[in-house]
């Protein structure tokens, strides 16, 4: 009886719930992260050594400027004005006073020092989380002093990766076609530069027309199109040795070359009798393989990063559209269905997106879509622009844009531009001459 009463009593006791309140945070701000880049401190002895070698008064300050500029260009960071810094660089490389940096609204801080060790340049840098008051990363680099610009790029790559979660793209080069002279008599040379426009070098003399240079994803090789006796042929150039050669012995025009993700093959178009198909050539054994076989113009092939698929553009539907197929040429599937013409598809190194050029109602667009054709987004619109190329992390696209000429044919220019996937961070890439057909290299250091 007592047990029954106890049972009823227990049932009747109301259970008070103490469930934890949960709040879902699904939105944030996309404004650039405020970062303080403190000039790297240098002792007077090292400063004198580097001044003699590099003709730079304060190498630590110069390196920090490169880092600052890279971070600003990325659009994801807002490097704070150095005038606002409360701690001086000569003590900032020690444990920083976080309150001072929080006061100027910095969320991350880069500090470090540069020293000369046996004629080499040694950089020690640290990344600090100001709000958490802790160190996030500490690295040291040793290299020859003339490599100082790359040190700045490598620091940026490390910081970028630590704060965004993805690889950087700053220690990279861009190969492009440098253009000079009037539009009807253009001199086109192959040129290469660091991604920030420095260290510009010309690789050809401008005697032959060159087009569509493409970097190998694995080494410092470049494939491009050059005209010989008015016949376009695909060439291969080793930019370290300067040796170049014709790719394959095709009895016709070869164009639109690109490397496979492992760098072992070149995929390109071969045109004969008004028909254009896609071919690959193995660079080791020189075996040529026909991938498409269709009485239409199939061109601009690009491999997926895993090498299993190829995207290309074709007019087999009557209009130029983008298609995806298996790397052996089977299972061809059209993926672009929007209004207008689609061309120059390039698969992202991340594998998630395909960038393209779109022509619609007389305007050119650079856009991206998923590999299945969904989620088309047009990032930028202009009078004439094309040839997007991905940064190695798949975050930024570089392309070229031409301006309209007036009735006298004056005012023409071609410039390189970059835009990130948000579509907001569009920037002019400074080049000494007019420029077109850019291609981004992979990271020089990992």
């Amino acid at each position, binding site marked *: 009886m007592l047990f029954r009463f106890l049972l009823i009593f227990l049932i009747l006791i109301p259970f008070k719930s103490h469930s934890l309140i949960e709040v879902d945070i699904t939105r944030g701000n996309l404004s650039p992260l405020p970062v303080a880049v403190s000039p790297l401190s240098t002792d007077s002895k090292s400063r004198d050594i580097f001044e003699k070698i590099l003709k730079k008064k304060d190498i630590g300050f110069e390196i920090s400027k490169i880092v600052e500029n890279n971070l600003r260009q990325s659009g994801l960071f807002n490097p704070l004005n150095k005038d606002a810094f409360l701690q001086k660089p000569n003590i900032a490389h020690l444990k920083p006073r976080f309150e001072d940096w929080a006061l100027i609204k910095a*969320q991350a801080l880069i500090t470090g020092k540069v020293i000369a060790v046996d004629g080499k340049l040694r950089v020690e840098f640290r990344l600090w989380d100001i709000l958490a008051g802790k160190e996030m990363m*500490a690295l040291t680099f040793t290299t020859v002093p003339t490599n100082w610009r790359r040190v700045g790029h490598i620091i940026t790559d490390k910081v970028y990766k*630590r704060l965004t979660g993805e690889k950087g793209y700053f220690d990279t080069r861009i190969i492009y076609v440098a253009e000079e002279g009037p539009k009807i008599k253009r001199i086109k040379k192959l040129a290469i530069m660091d991604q920030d426009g420095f260290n510009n070098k010309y690789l050809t003399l401008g005697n032959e027309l060159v087009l569509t240079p493409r970097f190998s994803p694995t080494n*410092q090789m470049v494939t491009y199109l050059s005209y010989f*006796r008015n016949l376009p042929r695909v060439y291969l150039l080793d930019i370290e040795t300067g040796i170049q*050669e014709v790719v394959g012995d095709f009895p016709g025009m070869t164009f639109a070359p690109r490397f496979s993700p492992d760098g072992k093959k070149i995929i390109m178009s071969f045109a004969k009798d008004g028909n254009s198909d896609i071919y690959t050539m193995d660079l080791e054994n020189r075996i040529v393989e026909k991938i498409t076989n269709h009485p239409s113009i199939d061109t601009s092939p690009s491999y997926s990063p895993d090498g299993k698929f190829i995207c290309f553009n074709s007019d087999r539907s009557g209009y130029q559209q983008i298609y995806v197929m298996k790397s052996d040429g089977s299972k061809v599937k059209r993926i672009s269905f929007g209004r207008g013409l689609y061309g120059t598809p390039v698969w992202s190194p991340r594998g998630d997106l395909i960038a393209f050029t779109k022509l619609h109602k007389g305007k050119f667009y650079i856009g991206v879509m998923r590999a299945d054709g969904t989620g088309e987004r047009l990032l930028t619109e202009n009078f004439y622009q094309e040839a997007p190329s991905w940064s190695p992390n798949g975050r930024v696209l570089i392309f070229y844009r031409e301006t309209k000429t007036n009735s006298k044919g004056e005012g023409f220019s071609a410039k390189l531009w970059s835009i990130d996937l948000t579509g907001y961070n569009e920037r002019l890439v400074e080049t000494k001459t007019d420029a077109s057909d850019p291609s981004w290299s992979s990271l020089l250091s990992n």
Partner: protein
Amino acid sequence: MLMIIITAMSLPFLSKKPLDLPPIISVELIQITDQTNIPFAPKAKKIIEKVKKKEKEKLVSEQAPPKAIKKEKPDAVPLPDQENEKNKEVKDKKQNPEKIDNEVKQVSEFEKEELFDTNNIAALIDKAKEKKADVINKTDKVTQDRDKNLDIVGLSLSEEDALKAQIFGCWSIPLGLPYDEKLLVKIKLKLKPDGTVIRTEILNHERMNKPGQGFYKVLAESALRAIQLCQPLRVPTTGYERWKDLQLNFDAREMLEG
């Protein structure tokens, strides 16, 4: 023959000059440490010590006992008669009974019903006050019941919106994160009544240091920065027991999908 030589010389691979490109020099990378033990600068150290000292002093002053209030001696306790007198004085001041008493005394019993009786009105007003007070008490009880219900349901929509809006502004989403991965960071907070954060705890903390979980770490760190930046959090002014423990689920997929 001459033509052949000229043609051959014009081939790009023959006419090419050796490239004047600086070779790519390897850079030796050495990881110093994940966590540093490097000291503060001597001057900074002094300042930090000063600040810490001040903070300690502040804490001491906060914890200092309240000023001693002079207790009334037992002798000062009023005698019952004196107390009555005091009460009378208060009553006199409040109700001014002398006048009313005089008026009541002057009216006969017949006249009572017909006459305009201010005292009765006062009484009526008093009753109205009593009723009103009852209603207030009742509604108060209802509010408390609601509060109990909220304990189970969570924050009200407006409370949640206020908190969300605040954190939205503080959270810089790392744009490098892939949108197709299941990245959700759950952080449990212990809050003070004013919304400042006492403690944060990442619920899947083991993922932070797992290899291949770099994106999770970046997201978690950005979420922690947002909390630090936002505090004191915009929490309701009442019901501390209800929200002193709070869980924030940071999910960037919606934003990254664009």
